[in-house]
């Protein structure tokens, strides 16, 4: 079990540990994890798709050696799927059993009042932990040694669901009407929420979180990311392809290539035993980085110019 407190001693230390786990991040990202750990606050991570929002949570769990509990949000997600659900099948079975034993329990009872009294003694296990099916959020609260809770793409869920999250985010607890309040064990989970900004997240939710915006990385960081993820690629080519991608991001595209695309491209080029970029090769592999035909057509005329720029870098 690694010493988490020691790892999160300073921003620099965190950054180094992240790098050990092949996650290259800016100071800003490391600071966010640092604050999240020390202030015990959830982090809301926003940014364009493919900049490593989800990866951040995964790497954090790996680094701290904590279990990762993930809740993927989608439209229509509700408490029964996110927090808890009653095992109604089991409950149904239980009523059958109860019905059969009811006679035994009530045997010899005088009058209605006593019968009810005995029934009460029998225990109110119907809505008890026994019949509770914990879902990700409840599971996260019950982890003994803490865990990393990833609530992915929270913007895809409904407004109502956001309100459900508020309690767990601010107090690390959930209220179940039949049982009471379940509080986090001594180590509350580290919570990461990610959002692609398809809609505005409510202020109430934002207020409870640290807000981290991860933009596209600059040349230097992106090169190091490629180095970490695709270590076999020659340095020369790495520099060229990163420059090329950076140039592409400045163009007016429907979907600009993200880091994951850069990595894919690097792998592709490695597979093709490429030594250096050339326009024809770029044209042939463009569909790895651009995902819309329209974009590919738009870029086509500029490929030569951008490639030569990348070669000169």
């Amino acid at each position, binding site marked *: 079990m690694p010493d988490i407190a020691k790892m999160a001693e300073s921003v620099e230390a965190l950054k180094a540990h992240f790098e050990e786990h092949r996650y290259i991040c800016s*100071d800003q990202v490391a600071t966010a994890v640092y*604050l999240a750990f020390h*202030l015990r606050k959830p982090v*809301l991570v926003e940014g364009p798709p493919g900049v490593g929002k989800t990866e951040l949570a995964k790497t954090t769990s790996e680094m701290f050696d904590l279990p990762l509990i993930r809740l993927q949000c989608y439209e229509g997600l509700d408490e029964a799927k996110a927090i808890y659900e009653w095992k109604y099948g089991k409950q149904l079975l239980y009523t059958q059993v109860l019905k059969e034993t009811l006679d035994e329990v009530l045997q010899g009872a005088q009058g209605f009042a006593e019968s009810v009294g005995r029934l009460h003694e029998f225990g109110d296990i119907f809505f008890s932990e026994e019949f509770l099916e914990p879902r990700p959020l409840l599971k996260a609260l019950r982890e003994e040694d803490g865990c990393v809770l990833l609530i992915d793409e929270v913007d895809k869920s409904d407004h109502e669901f956001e309100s459900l999250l508020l309690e767990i985010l601010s107090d690390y607890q959930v209220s179940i009407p039949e049982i009471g309040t379940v509080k986090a064990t001594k180590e509350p989970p580290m919570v990461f929420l990610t959002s692609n900004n398809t809609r505005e997240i409510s202020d109430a939710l934002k207020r409870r979180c640290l*807000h981290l915006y991860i933009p596209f990385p600059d040349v230097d960081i992106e090169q190091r990311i490629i180095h970490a993820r695709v270590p076999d690629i020659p340095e020369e080519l790495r520099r060229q392809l990163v420059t090329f991608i950076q140039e592409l991001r400045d163009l007016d595209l429907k979907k600009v290539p993200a880091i994951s695309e850069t990595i894919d491209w690097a792998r592709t080029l490695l597979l093709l035993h490429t030594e250096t970029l050339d326009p024809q090769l770029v044209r042939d592999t463009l569909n790895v980085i651009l995902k819309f035909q329209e974009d590919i057509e738009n870029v086509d005329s500029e490929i030569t110019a951008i490639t030569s720029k990348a070669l000169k870098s």
Partner: protein
Amino acid sequence: MDRTLANFIRALRNAEVRISTAETLDAFSCVELVGYEDRAHLKRSLSLVLPKTEDEKETFDSTFDQFFKYTDVQGERAATQSEADDGDAAEGEGGEGEGEGGEGEGGGSAEAQNRGQQTGGKKKKKSKGNAYLGEEEEEEDLGPGEMTDAQSPLGALLMQNSRVELTVAMSEAGEKVDVREIQVFTQKGLYTRRIMDEMGLAGLNREISDARDSNNVSQRRMGQELKRRREWLRDQVRDYVERQFLLHADATGKRLREELLRKVKLSNVEHRSFRLIQEIVYKMAKKLAALHSRRKKVFKRGQINIPRTLRYNMAYDGAIFDLKWKSVKIDRPKVFAICDVSGSVANYSRFMLMFLYSLEEVMPKVRSFAFSSDLAEVTDLFDRNNLEDAIAKTLRDYAGGSTDYGQAFQDFKRLCLDGIDHRTTIIILGDARNNYGDPRAEILKEMYDRCKRLIWLNPESRNSWYVGDAEMRRYSAYCHQVDECNSLMHLERVVGNLLRTVT
């Protein structure tokens, strides 16, 4: 220290970053953790706690730099000044006693470390006074010597050479004259003056002029020194006002402008205000979207939600008699916007389209049509381009020609009358001035019969609706609602109502 942070948050709020009390508390605990020592670290940390959108982060960055840079500049100035003082003191050494010069230097470096401290500062100032006087032509012969003490309160304060106390006095004066209320940049001079007055400028001026006329050499020397420091003070106050202006006024001034723009007639909006208008439209739309983005549920009859039914009927011994139905979410409203883009109405159409498309979040299904004589659908333009371009293209392609409502309705019928169903809301924006052509009101009736709601927005004032070639009388018979709409406020109200009734 905490005050600094509170002030910073105030400045941020002024720059339109929304910060709640809870976030303020977070910021305090955050500062407690990271401290003020490492500026970059502090900035990174606070930027996680305070701003909560990408835009706000940008604002935060610039505000942070502005806010915390100021103190740095002040520090530098103090340092350079005391360096200069050191030099002066060294120059004056010849005239003065050696020990005194040394002391002056010591004071100078002490001041460089903690500006405001004045151990030996006064003596140093004296010696500096010597050197300075050497350059002044009119009283060249005064030479080194004693100065009398300043009598007026402000003069005394200035001679004390205590930056801290001066700053305190300046802020107090600033409070008294409500410098935070400053709104436009032309007021900067006024407030500088007021603050100086409040600090006792009159007394100081009197003393300076008295000193000049005095026979006493040391008093004259003191007068010159005071005069020099008065200029320095003026610079300081001006800086102070400037900073207050940047922190407080910028936003208030803007808010004032926004307030005005909301009410002004859209056709009178100057071109340079378009950007701001767009911002306002966007803000209004955001507000409306937030208000109406909750979706209502309706029950889908005929489909049982088995898990829920079983769960709820547990208490009845598993006998299923309390049925739970599946529910579906209601469809978002369909809105058809038909905009007259001929010269006279183009500007209104521009803003209306802007508004409707800013509401994408709550009204994703807007189809828009533009016409002056012929009508065409422009929905695609808006899908493919950003808002500004789409509007510009629409106006370019369809704005020519004289208005013909009859033709436009006929085109509309041909294009998409079938698309209208009981969920559709049609908004027509136009002045109904048909150049005495055939109004074809029967087509409007057909639309009226099929749709859920037909709203006509007319940018002209109600009085002129029935005058001249306007066909409003005939058309309004086939509208559920007819409204005058010529400012952003009107527009906001109409769209707000629309959302209330259609969602």
